[in-house]
């Protein structure tokens, strides 16, 4: 489809985790970003702390596509353990750079790629004394070599190094020395730069590189969340880390020293759910981040919040399931669980952010929806969005934003009403009023997960029970209109085919769509952003002969939801499933659709 070229190639750095390579890799990515060239960074790391293979992939994408390419053009192979895999990974014509302190002739086994050896360890061992700094400096040395090969701006790199070591200034020259070692060696020994390389552009102004968890944490701060509880679990931990960090920076009352927030580390996910529900019932805007296993454990409490109508925001940062699965790999495999979690008839609201910009927006949106509809809301992200740095528009917060706290009666209002009934739909919008503890004796009511009437009393009578659960169903349906509307990218020409995707699949699907169109296959694309689905989704399916549902799980969970929760005929939907654990790439989508259409033509 496309080959590597100027500002259009993918670099993959293979290292061992716990060796400090993360900052070197970040530096490389940032350098390109600062040169005005859009980048995509993907961190593929193992589920341990030290000593296992890890990769960092940087796609340089002058066109500004935000997804993965699917091919690798340049590998910096620093981990002998994975040399074979790294070599195999390279596209024909690609380049592999490795540490030739220990020469590896077998790396020459592929005639269609170029292998470059630089004695990085040898040079660093010679230049630096301390054992730990030798390891760290080797990372900077490959940064230098890459800079030479890819035409990166050394000034920009120096600036980044300077920022990195603010406060430890004496490390700056040492690190720049290591950069120079690699850089100079490359200049002297290889043809620099390579054919595919970076040239400055002006496409990153007004942009930031941020991961979705951090953005969601900031969103919760700006959205007015005052409560958070969580039990640590990869890959959700950094969401709460961010919330905590910015709360501590921005939310401590300067006069009293008191916190205008409360964050509790729970003893497990059941407790995290209980803490959050308890706080929400008492009136705080709260949320709990977790991942699949956590949602499983919260299931009982989720049904409780649904039935008792307590606002509850759960941020599920998905990882590969089932069970512990691959905790550092990405999937979209909890879609169905989040839609229906818990026993009995339960159905929830789900938001599908597609990138950190939306994480920022939707984490606040989730709080609004939860309080408006008094029900569990899932913020459904994944490792790819949550833990990778994405280039997005600088985050800005609407000046006029007012948190939607939903229907809460205060003391004055309670004083005025004749009587307050917790589950009575007084104004026909399917949402009853609630009250907070400590407000007014008239507002007192008893919350229970057992059968209750619309007045809030205990019941075991079928008709009284039904009245409440029927309203819950109506309330849930009504929420469809309040979900963020789908985003549609239409083909210039009338398209017989459509694609539907959610969340982190968006970037790859968008690119695949464009390229299919460029290749003469007009395809419309709808990105769904919330569940329950709006009527637009049905209309989109109706308007096409066939719709490819692209998602990152084995069981076509999104497609199944579309089948049961829209009126569209199921025959039109075709699953495109990717579930290896690596973030989706556009080639996969392109090829899946192309192949499917070829089959149609033949048949």
């Amino acid at each position: 489809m496309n080959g590597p070229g100027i500002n259009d190639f993918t670099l993959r750095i293979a290292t061992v985790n716990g060796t400090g390579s993360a900052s070197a890799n970040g530096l490389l990515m940032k350098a390109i970003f600062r040169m005005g060239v859009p980048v995509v960074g993907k961190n593929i790391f193992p589920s341990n702390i030290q000593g296992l293979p890890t990769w960092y992939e940087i796609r340089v994408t002058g066109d500004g596509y935000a997804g993965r390419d699917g091919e690798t053009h340049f590998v910096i192979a620093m981990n002998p353990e994975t040399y074979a895999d790294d070599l195999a990974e390279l596209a024909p014509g690609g380049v592999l750079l490795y540490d030739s302190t220990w020469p590896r002739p077998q790396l020459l086994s592929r005639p269609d790629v170029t292998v470059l050896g630089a004695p990085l360890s040898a040079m660093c061992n010679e230049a630096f004394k301390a054992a730990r700094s030798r390891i760290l400096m080797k990372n900077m040395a490959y940064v230098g070599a890459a800079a030479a090969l890819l035409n990166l701006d050394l000034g920009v790199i120096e600036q980044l190094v300077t920022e990195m070591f603010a406060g430890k200034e004496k490390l700056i020259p040492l690190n720049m020395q290591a950069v120079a070692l690699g850089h100079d060696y490359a200049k002297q020994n290889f043809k620099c730069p390579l054919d595919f390389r970076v040239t400055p552009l002006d496409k990153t102004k007004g942009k930031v590189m941020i991961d979705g968890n951090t953005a969601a944490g900031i969103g919760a701060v700006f959205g007015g969340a005052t409560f958070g509880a969580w039990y640590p679990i990869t890959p959700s931990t950094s969401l709460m880390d961010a919330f905590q960090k910015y709360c501590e920076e921005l939310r401590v009352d300067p006069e009293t020293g008191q916190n205008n927030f409360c964050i509790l580390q729970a003893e497990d996910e059941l407790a995290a759910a209980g803490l959050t529900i308890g706080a929400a019932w008492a009136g705080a805007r709260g949320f709990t981040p977790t991942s699949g296993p956590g949602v499983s454990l919260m299931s009982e409490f989720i049904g409780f919040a649904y039935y008792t109508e307590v606002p509850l925001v759960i941020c599920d940062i998905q990882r590969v399931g089932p069970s512990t699965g691959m905790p550092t790999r990405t999937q979209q495999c909890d879609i169905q669980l989040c839609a229906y979690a818990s026993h009995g008839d339960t159905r929830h609201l789900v938001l599908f952010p597609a990138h950190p910009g939306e994480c920022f927006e939707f984490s606040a949106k989730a709080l609004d929806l939860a309080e408006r509809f008094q029900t569990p809301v899932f913020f459904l992200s994944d490792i790819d969005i949550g833990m990778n740095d994405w280039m997005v528009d600088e985050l800005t917060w609407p000046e006029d934003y007012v948190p939607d706290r939903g229907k809460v009666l205060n003391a004055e209002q309670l004083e005025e009403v004749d009587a307050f009934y917790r589950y009575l739909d007084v104004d026909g919008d399917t949402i009853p009023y609630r009250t907070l503890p400590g407000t007014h004796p008239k507002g007192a009511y008893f919350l229970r997960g057992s059968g209750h009437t619309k007045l809030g009393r205990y019941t075991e009578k079928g008709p009284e029970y039904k009245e409440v659960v029927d309203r819950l169903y109506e309330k849930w349906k009504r929420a469809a209109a309040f979900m963020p509307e789908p985003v549609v990218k239409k083909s210039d020409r009338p398209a017989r085919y459509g694609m539907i995707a959610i969340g982190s699949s968006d970037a790859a699907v968008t690119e695949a769509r464009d390229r299919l169109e460029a290749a003469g296959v007009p395809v419309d694309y709808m990105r769904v952003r919330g569940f329950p689905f709006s009527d637009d989704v049905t209309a989109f399916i109706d308007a096409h002969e066939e719709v490819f549902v692209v998602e990152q799980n084995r069981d076509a969970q999104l497609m199944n939801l579309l089948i049961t929760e829209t009126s569209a005929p199921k025959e039109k939907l075709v699953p495109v499933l990717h579930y290896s654990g690596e973030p989706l790439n556009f080639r996969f989508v392109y090829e899946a659709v192309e192949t499917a259409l070829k089959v149609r033509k033949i048949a």
Partner: protein
Amino acid sequence: MTSFVKPKIRRLNEPTNGLGKTRADYDGAMSTLCAGCGHDSVTAALARAFYELSTDPKDVVKVSGIGCSSKTTTYFLKDAHGANTVHGRMPSFATGAAAVNKNLTYVGVSGDGDSLSIGLGQMAHAIRRNVDMIYMLENNGVYGLTKGQFSASSDIGSKAKKGATNMLPPIDPAIMALSIGATFVARSFSGDKQQLVSLIKAGIAHRGFALIDVISPCVSFNDHKGSTKSYAHTYQYYHKAVHADYVPPSEEITASYDEGEAMPVELHDGGSILLRKLDKDYDPTNRASAMEKLMQSQQTQEILTGLLYIDESRPAMAEHKKLPETPLHSIPYSKLNPGADALRKLQDEFR
């Protein structure tokens, strides 16, 4: 099957408390428990304690799990918010609620099944956090609502109604709580209303988590011969170790007391708890020695009651979490929103 509200008839010259409320103002819905169930006595003691403390019911939050015991939160203080959560998970819900508004009084009600089996972890961690709440563990050695299985507080050798003998060692909530750093540990008996009311008042006044393990017999499934949680057995082995009276900040301690036998513990609210040791060499302010006594009493089957341990020095959750005076739900958004400038600045590191 709807919950019935007791008819409210105020008698002439009925006594009232500092708020002008009668004892009946602290009632709730009519109990649906078995006639004679210990839990109903605990309910009465709670209502009485709040009445005597002149607490405004609307400033109380009642929380429970699932079980006969956990149902009782509807049977007192109808003007207070209450919640029946899910089985064994009341502590987390209560902790979350308590984090929002430190100016209310939190009452948890649970059973031995709810707290010591499914809920053991949550109870332990609420104790660790020293959540400012009183935790009534209505302990009958049995799962009442599911009709008579052994609970984790059953003593070795205790007999089930259907005949089986319990072989597993009990989890004594008081011992367990002490072992993980509880700051207020008491035990009482549903049949001793006077002691119970005193302890509840002291527990409410305590800063932090106050556990009251109340032996509260189940007449339907665990009140037979051979049960160590029956009324008869409890009366027989009942032993009062330390009596505790709450003295509000306004009152001076006038009762004269013998230095060796009684002592006041100062509370953070300016009031105090006046301890009267009924057992001379029992020191309820020494954790290791309280533990020793409790473990000894386990050997002798003695049921040691009263305020078994108190430590007013450890900060409650509200303090170590630096919770604000204003409830979290009422902090104006202008204070919560760091503003556009801050947002711009914090993004410097993402460029």
